[in-house]
């Protein structure tokens, strides 16, 4: 019988942990986005690779150059920079010049995350900060949508613009389903929206694949189901109510859900844990707020798309929501805290 006296560690309880860690959660999101990304490649060909690649490069390089040497490995390890770059890339139009996508990635990480103090401290979703920057700076390039039906190896000339130039193109562009709806009151068939054969940004076109990824995340316990569910329900209900007033002018509920970046935003961006409330009640409020804002902006705003601003606005409200939705502490009366 052996009775070795091991050099005992003195670590503290709890000695058990649930299996998920922050890096695996980030990795899961990357996996969940893979089908939608591949669909983007399928529909938009080599341009998708170029645009997404440029935005990831921008994000990851910024992450590396701004993290201190000792933290460098770690901040790469958690995969959040990569994820931000990918998410940003998926919201960009396929014909965007690569240098703009790269710049977007730099801004997303730099202004969206690094200056806040790194992962966990930022108020706004970094990918959306990058996109908001691009939309404000390059409005034309960001709203020029090309059609998805070109051969894989067709290079879109605009991708290769040298920095700080942009060639206007004509003839190649196509309006997105939301644009068609808003400006021409012309609805795109739902099946096209569902499968992804519409024009739009790289990752937002196929509702089916985005939902599948979301289901995967749910079963991996990486996703707060309340946020996408509340956003989608709110959009459905609110659109249906508006439809009662004027079904010609306002988009139908299902069309609203499957068009534009709504699914991408609801499943992958609004659920960013850092920028969404921590309390269960708070997440419902957060989701409902986003849903309302999306419909309001889409219907009454000047632009066809509103998901980005809706999420950013609710991001800003998150600290406040958190503050007012702290649950009642066990054994205390409501209102005892704060």
């Amino acid at each position, binding site marked *: *019988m*052996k*009775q*070795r*006296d*091991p050099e*005992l*560690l*003195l*670590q*503290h*309880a*709890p*000695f*058990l*942990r*649930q299996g*998920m*860690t*922050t*890096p*695996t*959660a980030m990795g899961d999101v990357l996996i969940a986005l893979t089908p939608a990304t591949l669909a983007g490649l399928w529909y938009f060909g080599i341009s998708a690779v170029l645009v997404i690649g440029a935005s990831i490069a921008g994000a990851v390089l910024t992450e590396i150059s701004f993290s201190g040497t000792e933290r460098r490995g*770690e901040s790469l*390890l*958690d995969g959040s920079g990569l994820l931000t770059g990918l998410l940003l890339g998926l919201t960009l139009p396929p014909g965007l010049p690569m240098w703009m996508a790269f710049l977007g990635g730099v801004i997303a990480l730099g202004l969206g995350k690094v200056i806040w103090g*790194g*992962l*966990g*401290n930022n108020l706004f979703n970094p990918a959306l900060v990058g996109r908001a920057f691009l939309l404000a700076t390059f409005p034309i390039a960001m709203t020029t949508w090309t059609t998805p039906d070109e051969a894989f190896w067709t290079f879109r000339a605009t991708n290769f613009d040298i920095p700080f130039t942009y060639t206007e193109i004509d003839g190649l562009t196509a309006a997105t389903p939301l644009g068609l709806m808003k400006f021409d009151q012309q609805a795109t068939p739902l099946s096209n929206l569902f499968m992804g054969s519409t024009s739009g940004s790289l990752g937002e076109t196929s509702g089916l694949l985005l939902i599948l990824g979301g289901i995967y995340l749910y079963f991996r*316990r*990486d*996703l*707060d*189901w*309340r946020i996408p569910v509340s956003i989608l329900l709110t959009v459905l209900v609110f659109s249906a109510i508006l439809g009662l007033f004027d079904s010609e002018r306002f988009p139908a509920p299902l069309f609203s859900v499957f068009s534009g970046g709504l699914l991408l935003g609801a499943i992958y961006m609004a659920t960013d*844990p*850092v*920028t*969404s*409330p*921590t*309390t*269960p009640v708070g*997440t419902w409020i957060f989701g409902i707020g986003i849903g309302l804002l999306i419909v309001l902006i889409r219907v009454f705003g000047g632009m066809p798309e509103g998901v980005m601003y809706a999420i950013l606005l609710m991001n800003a409200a998150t600290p406040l929501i958190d503050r007012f939705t*702290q*649950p*009642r*502490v*066990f*054994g*205390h009366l409501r209102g*005892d*805290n704060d």
Partner: protein
Amino acid sequence: MVNLNPLNLISGSFRHGVHPQHLKVQTQDLPIQRVPFGSNYVMPLGQHIGVPCKPIVKKGQRVRRGEEIASASGFVSIALHSPVTGVVKEIGEFRTFDGNFSQAIEIEADAFSTQEPNIGPAIDWESMNIEQFIQAVQGAGIVGMGGAAFPAHVKFSIPEGQQIRYLLINGAECEPYLTNDHRLMLERPDALLKGAEIVRQKLGAEETVIGVELNKPEAIEALQARIQPGDPVRVVSLEAKYPQGAEKMIIKTVFGREVPAGQLPRDVEVNVNNVSTVVAIADYFDHGMPLIERIVTVSGPGVSYPANLIVPLGTPVREVLKFCGGLKDETMEVIMGGPMMGRPIASLDAPVVKGCSGILAFTEGQTLKRKEFPCIRCGRCVEACPYFLNPARFARLSRARMFGEMKGYFVFDCVECGCCAFACPSSIPIVQLIRTGKDQLRNTQASEK
């Protein structure tokens, strides 16, 4: 903020909490066996919560098994008894499991003694009044055996004007690995029911409710089979969820009542006792045996032969482990108690104490320092905390050394159950940060006085 089971909201259990793996299969079917007697026993005087007891024996004095060797000094204090027949070898400082030194009595077992238990006559509890009963329990050295080791009799003294309606026997055993209560319910259901009945009658409670987690169906059956129709006893099965066995949580689950912060179960007319505690009470009144041994689950991946053991108090942890085939080479940490709230053992020579429900040995998988990542504000800890506190905020404030704020957010309501740290994907040592905060607050409070 992930809740895979929306049904949690409508099930009868307390809300929040976590679902660790049960990990009880290694020991749940192993009958309780007795550890052979060794040579030296060390009995720390402060192995219960409260005032340490006072030695009443001299060095060199002969003591019999079960004889009182230290008496209670004050109300929140209990007596201590010799676990073996032998000689008092030393009264002095001995190392306890946390690595510190504390006053203790060392007894050298008589090598020629059979260590036959000194079975006395049954004690007539029926004619005792409540004060006598409380004194008897105090004199028997009985503590709450769930782990905290709070003197049992203190709970039985009910202030004027309050009354107890329900006696709740806690057989939840929600900590993973531990099966000592499970085996006790299976093997000694009669003693359990007897002890419960004694306590119920003395407290004047209407009904005894025994709460057992659903992952112990045999225990539930064994108890149910012993209950006659008309007995004021009821067994309720509880959802297997951690920390179902926490006093306030099991009350919430069984009676749907929340014990207000800063108050005790008796304020909602309930008295809660662990199954081992009532068995100890039954043993005392049946044949005068005070608390000199307890059942310990020895398990974990670092133990060669896991077991449920009757261990005389004062036995060195090393001897217990030796009986189980020793530690495996890859063992990295040994703890006392369950994996969620247990405490690390610094010295294997330290004795088993009254609050030791388990000795678990972990290998690299459990103890290797998890890499810490920044808090991603995911809210999983918020959704795990059964007390509805905000652990992430405590961790942040503690890191920023803003201890005063922590108090405002009720850090003292935290029972350090570990649900938050269990759930945290970024492996933030939330419980330690909370403890730091509490310690700092206590220190400043003490220095202000």
